[in-house]
């Protein structure tokens, strides 16, 4: 009897709540740094300058929001898809406490300016060791639970979970090899172009294994579950998975187009970036195919709405990304705001929508209750959608504008906007729009958190255990 399985949900709940908490911190800092770009007087003290806060923003939302959301949802998925309780629930609870200690120390260290400078890899070496320990503890539980599963065949979500487990470990360790000078300072083991190449191999595959395989694992579970429709194509998911996991690692150098890094590395990266459209769209097509004949659920089912909009932004993201890799387009938009616009469509559109759908689906079930308010879930949906679109679209416009101003030359070949500041200040109105988009998104996220907290509070106490 299925009811006899005693699933272990303590760490699932704890990581979900931690994830929501750190998301709020990360989003608040995001709004602040957005304001600082137009109002430099908001750089109040050394601890609150843009240069230190931007890594706080990115790290809080990668390692504080997305990663614990994955810990939570993956601990849930391996139990449900394997029909077994978590292998080591005590270890999972310990991982939860250690995670929150580590993330507090990480935040403080970034505020204090302890940084390796490499993007999304800023944390200094003692914290890197902490991250690796946490990842090992998490992986032990995931792998051991999968090993003792009762359901012989591993569903697609478990493939993406296993890819995340090994992928994050490889790229995080690979990029953080450094020689310590003191407890708070180290120097990269790699130099110059090689350091850049390793960094963007990491940078792009942090996207692959945090912002792609994590939400895909959630997507492949939540879409069939919430829509009641079986997955469109198992074969497509197999082809999509292996080609994605193979191709992603070749693409990092598209971040280094027109740098002195040897051309062959750049060209290989550009070619693989374009190829990557295929496996990405395999998942998009699988999503749309699953809803075949059921599209009215986009009106009636808020979970389907989140998950389908999420995969749609994933589809747009994976067309836009490869096109940015092409040299001619890179020449125009690289180093401009186009790129943050691109990244935020992925994070605010695809990742957050998918994680939200995961939490909306999972949390009422493990608390034995119903969602507090579907109306609020719909409000959340529209706020984050509108906020994200305002953010991305304004950044694309001003990115192309600034890129074009940098390129503008007169008939004699002299720069039209020789003074950099004349290309900078036209950003300000767009950046104010961006702040507005961010605030709307943040408001939507607060509605989400409120809805979740109300749901938990309404859970029948006797059955909470």
């Amino acid at each position, binding site marked *: 009897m299925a009811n006899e399985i005693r699933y272990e949900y303590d760490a699932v709940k704890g990581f979900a709540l931690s994830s929501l908490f750190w998301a709020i911190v990360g989003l608040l800092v995001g709004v602040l740094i957005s304001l600082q770009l137009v*109002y*430099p007087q908001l750089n109040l003290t050394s601890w609150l300058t843009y240069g230190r806060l931007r890594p706080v923003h990115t790290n809080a939302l990668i390692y504080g929001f997305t990663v614990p959301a994955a810990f939570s949802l993956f601990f849930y998925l391996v139990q449900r898809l394997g029909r077994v309780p978590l292998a080591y629930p005590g270890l999972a609870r310990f991982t939860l406490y250690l995670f929150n200690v580590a993330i507090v120390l990480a935040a403080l260290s970034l505020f204090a300016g302890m940084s390796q400078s490499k993007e999304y890899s800023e944390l200094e070496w003692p914290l890197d060791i902490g991250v690796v320990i946490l990842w090992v503890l998490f992986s032990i539980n995931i792998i051991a639970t999968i090993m003792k599963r009762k359901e012989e065949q591993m569903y697609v979500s478990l493939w993406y979970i296993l890819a995340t487990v090994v*992928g994050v470990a490889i790229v995080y360790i690979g990029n953080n090899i450094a020689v310590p000078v003191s407890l708070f300072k180290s120097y990269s083991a790699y130099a110059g172009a090689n350091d850049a190449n390793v*960094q963007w191999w990491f940078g792009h595959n942090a996207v692959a294994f945090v912002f792609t395989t994590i939400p895909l694992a959630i997507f492949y579970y939540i879409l069939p579950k919430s829509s009641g429709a079986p997955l469109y194509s198992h074969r497509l998911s197999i082809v999509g998975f292996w080609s994605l996991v193979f191709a992603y690692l070749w693409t990092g150098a598209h971040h280094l187009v027109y740098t002195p890094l040897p051309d062959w*590395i750049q060209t290989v990266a550009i070619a693989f970036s374009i190829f990557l459209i295929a496996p990405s769209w395999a998942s998009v097509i699988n999503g749309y195919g699953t809803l075949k004949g059921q599209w009215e659920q986009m009106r009636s089912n808020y979970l389907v709405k989140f998950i389908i909009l999420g995969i749609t932004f994933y589809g747009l993201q994976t067309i836009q990304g490869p096109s940015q890799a092409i040299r001619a387009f890179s020449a125009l938009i690289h180093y401009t705001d186009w790129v943050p616009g691109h990244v935020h469509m992925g994070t605010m559109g695809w990742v957050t929508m998918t994680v939200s759908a995961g939490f909306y689906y999972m949390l009422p079930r493990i608390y034995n209750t119903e969602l507090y308010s579907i109306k609020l879930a719909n409000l959340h949906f529209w706020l984050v959608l509108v906020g994200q679109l305002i953010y991305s679209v304004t950044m694309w416009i001003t990115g192309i504008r600034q890129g074009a101003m940098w390129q*503008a*030359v007169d008939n004699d070949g002299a720069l039209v906007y020789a003074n950099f500041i004349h290309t900078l200040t036209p950003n300000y109105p767009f950046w104010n729009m961006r702040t507005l988009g961010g605030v709307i998104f943040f408001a939507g996220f607060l509605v989400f958190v409120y809805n979740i907290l109300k749901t938990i509070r309404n859970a029948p106490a006797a059955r909470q255990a």
Partner: protein
Amino acid sequence: MSIDKRPVTFMLLAVLAIMVGTLLTTFIPLFVGTVVPATDKVVPYKPLEVEGRDIYIREGCNNCHSQIVRPLPFETARYGPPSTLEESAIDRPHLWGSRRTGPDLARVGKKYPAAWHYLHMKSPQSMYPQSNMPAYAWLADAKLDSRDGEKKMKVLGYPYTSEEINALEGKTEMDALVAYLLRLGKEMKP
């Protein structure tokens, strides 16, 4: 296909798939001559410049300033000749950057004298009223912590003299940062 019934085999295959591109495009090039340029033509960093670079990193200057000039006409017109592999050959970490909220700094050391940098770092708005750069006046009041000065040079493998290390004493963080900025664009021996 039965590998989706064998998690360990599955994981090993995933690692294999991940390692092909990883090795061929990222880790094998670490040992390929064309990617590892000669370093004997590069002027090594002085201890004060190393301290300045560390302050540049601490303050996250690379979040808004790149240090890489692309071989594109409009770019070389603005910033100077394209960056070369050699110029950053001894840089650990690299500071090429990914976003230009402010201008590229790869050649900034040739553009302005020290006095300009002191004034500009103290208050960017006093020079460009519409600039959005934070003011770093406090760096001029912060005494440079040079305790690890010698150890840093050893770890990085740059030559140094004890006079240079001793000279760190009494410098401010602003002195170090400006010394670093003045080096940018002057990496190669004449």
